[in-house]
């Protein structure tokens, strides 16, 4: 930023940024070729995605057209969002999604950060889980096994992050602890979990856990998947937090101690804020990774958003529109993940500006 602001605008008709693209015949040729290819692709994409696409209609109309079949996505849209949740409970799904969205929106503002927000999150998630299932409120039940579609993707990701974050912090502190037993246990947990792929943790959760449970107790597969994600996320976050904690100079905690802060106070007020701030990009990476990994739950029979996409591909009435489904899925995942990384960049600049002040 600073360098561009200081440098004098280059003379000539072209803006400075474009100048290197047209310096010399080779560069002009390359620029022209790239522009042509981009335009050609854009035209193709426009024709496929919009001009020749079928937006209303049935599969026959789609097969006759040369463009995309958005009618398929529209027809299956309810299924993508609600999955197998009974129709009478659909409004509750929307309510829960709205609640989570509102909580996330509130959490984006630093003014709200604090203990109240944490407690509100816990209350909101517990309430959402009970409310969506409905039994506790005397509403049409929507048991956990019917949960599917968009709500599962969001739910698993949010709950996994909400539970893995504190657990990861504990593990990171445990790994840096002076107590041998605590340190070894934390190291064992972290290294074991990081040493196996998520999919095997999910298999373990789905197939092994029922064997260990006492007779008559059945844990829903969604809960087991959730536990798997929490375990997985905690180990990865723990290593990130450890990096953050180790990046804070020792002088900080010594300084805090000289101000008569207890070790807990020093950690909470002095070390942790700096440590967490230092590793924001890495944390967001993990968030994005966990969010995308939720699509793996399909292998253990839980239908997340991508699972509902895949399942609707074999509806006999709508066979053969996989491209549209995957494009729609890609757009959704991209929007969410890109949103996350934009926010993290914003947070980073904001917090570092605070630091400079």
């Amino acid at each position, binding site marked *: 930023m600073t360098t561009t602001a200081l440098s004098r605008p280059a003379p000539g008709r072209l803006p400075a940024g474009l100048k290197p693209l047209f310096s010399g015949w080779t560069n002009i040729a390359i620029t022209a070729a790239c522009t042509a290819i981009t335009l050609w692709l854009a035209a193709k994409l426009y024709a496929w995605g919009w001009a020749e696409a079928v937006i209303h209609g049935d599969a026959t109309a789609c*097969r*006759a057209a040369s463009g995309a079949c958005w009618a398929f996505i529209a027809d299956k849209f309810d*299924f993508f969002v*609600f*999955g*197998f*949740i*009974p*129709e009478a409970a659909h409004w509750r799904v929307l309510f829960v999604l709205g609640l989570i969205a509102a909580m996330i929106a509130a959490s984006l503002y630093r003014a709200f950060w604090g203990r109240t927000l944490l407690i509100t999150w816990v209350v909101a998630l517990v309430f959402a889980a009970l409310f969506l299932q409905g039994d506790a409120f005397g509403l049409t039940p929507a048991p956990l*096994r*019917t949960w*599917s579609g968009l709500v599962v993707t969001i739910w698993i990701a949010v709950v996994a992050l909400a539970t893995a974050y504190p657990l990861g912090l504990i593990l990171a502190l445990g790994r840096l602890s002076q107590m041998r037993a605590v340190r070894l246990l934390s190291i*064992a947990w972290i*290294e*074991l979990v990081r*040493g196996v792929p998520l999919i095997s943790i999910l*298999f*373990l959760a*789905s*197939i*092994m856990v*029922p*064997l*260990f449970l006492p*007779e*008559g107790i*059945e844990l829903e*597969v969604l809960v087991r998947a959730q536990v798997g994600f929490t375990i997985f996320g905690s180990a990865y976050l723990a290593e990130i937090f450890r990096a953050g904690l180790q990046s804070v100079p020792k002088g900080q905690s010594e300084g805090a101690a000289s101000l008569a802060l207890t070790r807990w106070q020093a950690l909470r007020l002095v070390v942790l804020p700096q440590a967490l701030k230092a590793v924001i990009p890495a944390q967001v990476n993990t968030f994005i990774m966990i969010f995308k990994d939720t699509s793996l739950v*399909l*292998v*253990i*029979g839980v*239908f997340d958003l991508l*699972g*509902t996409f*895949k*399942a*609707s*591909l*074999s*509806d*006999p*009435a709508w*066979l*053969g529109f*996989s491209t549209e489904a995957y494009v729609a899925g890609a757009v959704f995942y991209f929007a969410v993940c890109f949103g996350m990384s934009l926010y993290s960049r914003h947070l980073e600049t904001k917090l570092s500006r605070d630091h400079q002040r």
Partner: protein
Amino acid sequence: MKGFTAALLGAVSLACITPTEAGSTLDAIKARGSLKCAVQGPSNPGFGVPGSGGKWVGFNVDLCRAIAATIFGDAEKIQISALTTQTRFPALQSGEVDVLTNNTTYVMTRDTQLKFNFPAISFMDGQGILVPKKLNVKSGKELNGATVCVQPGTTTELALTDYFRKNNMKFTPVVIQSRDELTRAYADGRCDALTSDATTLAAQRSTLANPAEHVILPDRLSKEPLGIAVRHSDEEFRDIVAWSFNALVNAEELGVTQANVDEMAKSGDPEIRRFLGVEPGLGAALGVDEKYAYTIIKQIGNYGELYEKYLGEKTPLAIPRGVNRLYTQGGALYTPPSR
């Protein structure tokens, strides 16, 4: 250290992957109040797909409903899990599901080594060949020198090679891993014929621009008996599964349909009267309601009706009934009589 822990964990897990045998499956199902079935995940056209209103529909789903109707008198008391090919067997072994109604091919090793029982063969599939009608081919034996699209590294590819060698014919394979791309290659005319299991071919055909211009040849290159699987050493439940399925087929044989089942119950034919539980005996012998077969047909329909509804000529799949016709109509569908 890490290696040791991993080895220990492996040993523990091996020790624990043995079928859980505490209590009978049937007692567990009754206590739970619903039957847990596996269908093929994410879904399988005609056999099990998510329908509107968040319910699974399809041929295999109705097999599950038939078993539930026998146990509970209510076909709706089911829980469907859609399991991938990687998870279906451990899921049955661990008791995650009670029964597999997911088009598992019944082969010897699955019966013996995996310790499953196959109480019924619900659908007889087999590798078929799809060709454009304009080729004017009536049998696979006329395909000498043809270019054939096939998925690589599968038993399908092996069976194809064997078939051509056996009949002293030559062919050029076009191998593509993805099923969708394979279908596209066929549609674009990169090969003369496409081979896969007949049910898969039917699904692939329905995605073509003009499905009516392509035909699945009558030749079958392999045997794929798709069965219903349960765990070993649970004879009571195995019988219930077997006779729920047999009721579907026997009803068709006896001419009992969903529409006429009430009328048929009044008929004088002793076989039909016994079958529908008008004259008691069969239900008690199985340990379920006397009218279990009546309930199945009333709530679901007979085998032929299910076939028509999900796989038959009026559906987009249009899979010819072929070998799955009753033995009385030239097929191979032959179940032991309910008596």
